[in-house]
């Protein structure tokens, strides 16, 4: 899955861990992602895919990303929405 690989690549670069150590099941907290990392990763994904990810740290209904797979799914969804049917 191309999107998943891109997400993994962006996260790997952000927190300096080997690409191969990341999987869809990797929990963000467990791999050491901090507050600054989350917003930088989201920014990088938005730039890469030309999408807007609805993420506000305060809204109770906000997307709560816990794993890499969840981020990839959301990006996939937004990319699909963007593409003409």
């Amino acid at each position, binding site marked *: 899955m191309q999107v998943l690989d891109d997400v993994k690549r962006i996260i790997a670069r952000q927190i300096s861990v080997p690409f191969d150590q990341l999987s869809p099941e990797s929990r963000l907290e467990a791999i050491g992602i*901090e*507050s600054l990392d989350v*917003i930088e990763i989201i*920014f990088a994904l938005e730039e890469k895919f030309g999408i807007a990810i609805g993420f*506000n*740290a*305060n809204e109770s209904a906000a997307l709560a990303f816990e794993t890499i797979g969840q981020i990839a799914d959301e990006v996939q969804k937004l990319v699909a929405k963007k593409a003409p049917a």
Partner: protein
Amino acid sequence: MNRVVITGIGIVSPVGCVIDEFWSALVEGRSGIRPIQAVATERLTTSSAAQVLGYDATAQFGRKQANSLDRFAQFAVSAARDAVKDAGLKIDEELAPQVATIVGSGAGGLNTLDDAYYRLYGENALTLHPLTIPRFMGNAAPSHVSLDLGLKGPAYSVASACASGAHAIGLAFQMVRSGSVPVAVAGGTEACLSVGTIKAWEALRILSNDTCRPFSKTRTGLVLGEGAAILVLEDRDRAVARGASPYAELRGFGMSSDAVDMLSPDPDGAARAIRAALQDARADLEDVDYVNAHGTGTTMNDRTEIGVLRSVFGAHSERLAISSNKGVLAHSLGAAGALEAAATALTLRDQIAPPTANFEVPDPECDLDVIPNTARPMPIRAAISNSFALGGLNAVLLFARA
């Protein structure tokens, strides 16, 4: 050691530039948060802010002088003039070299920078306005305040983001208490509502598109504001001798750095600052009746702050009256700590705790008494005002009845 009292207050705020207007809006919970109208909004996703609308710099300074001051310095000078007048302070030749001027600002002359860079990169201009540097530099506020009022003592600016105003007042307090100066003019100012700055805050993903609802479960984040507050801090004996009537006494100041994370608040850092203020004032936990909270209306701040008050004050936390002014004033960054210090001094003078405005639904994780929506007349012997900055720099001021 000298005792230190607040003898003058000057305000530039989204809910008025006169003390009575400012204070009645806070007590009545009338919010100054409005749709953004001072700057072009087509490129913003943020829709609201607490703007100082109707501020007429030309009326305050004349066209020529107004043009040489960024809005953040204009606010500081307006507030400082009012504070000195309110204190009934006569700056004569003898006093002038003994008055300190300390003004906090998170970022300095942002409007000047925004305009200059738009000209440069957007319009491909080859030259910039000759006063670009003196307008945007962070020390422009204390420089212009001291110049305008002829204050010739120690003067400098303080930058600690959202705690700048509180740090400035705390440092001025230490100078007056130690006897190094008899009088200080101190506070904070911020004019951060330029398109560039709002875009930069949007990128942090903590701005609300609704309004600021501190401690409410339905909170949607932080709302930016602007303004300034300047206080006159004075040696109590001197103030009494000249017949001044102080708003409140400033008793203690505590500072700390989280040294944990740039964005997430750290409970230990905030707790250490509160304990340091209590210790500095030689106050017991039970002496504090009211807390003017940092209360930004972000989930992270609000839950952390209430947890910290629980841990520091223990069983007494259940008896504390706690409120945030940010539902009314929003978050004016470097000015916030000073506006809230002014509000805390007025709280002690009038023995009325202002409410947390825009409150809708209790948050089970903020389960202390946050004075929802309605002010509370009550005996208040001492109060603390919390400021916890982005970057983990904390400042807590402890006030007592004059």
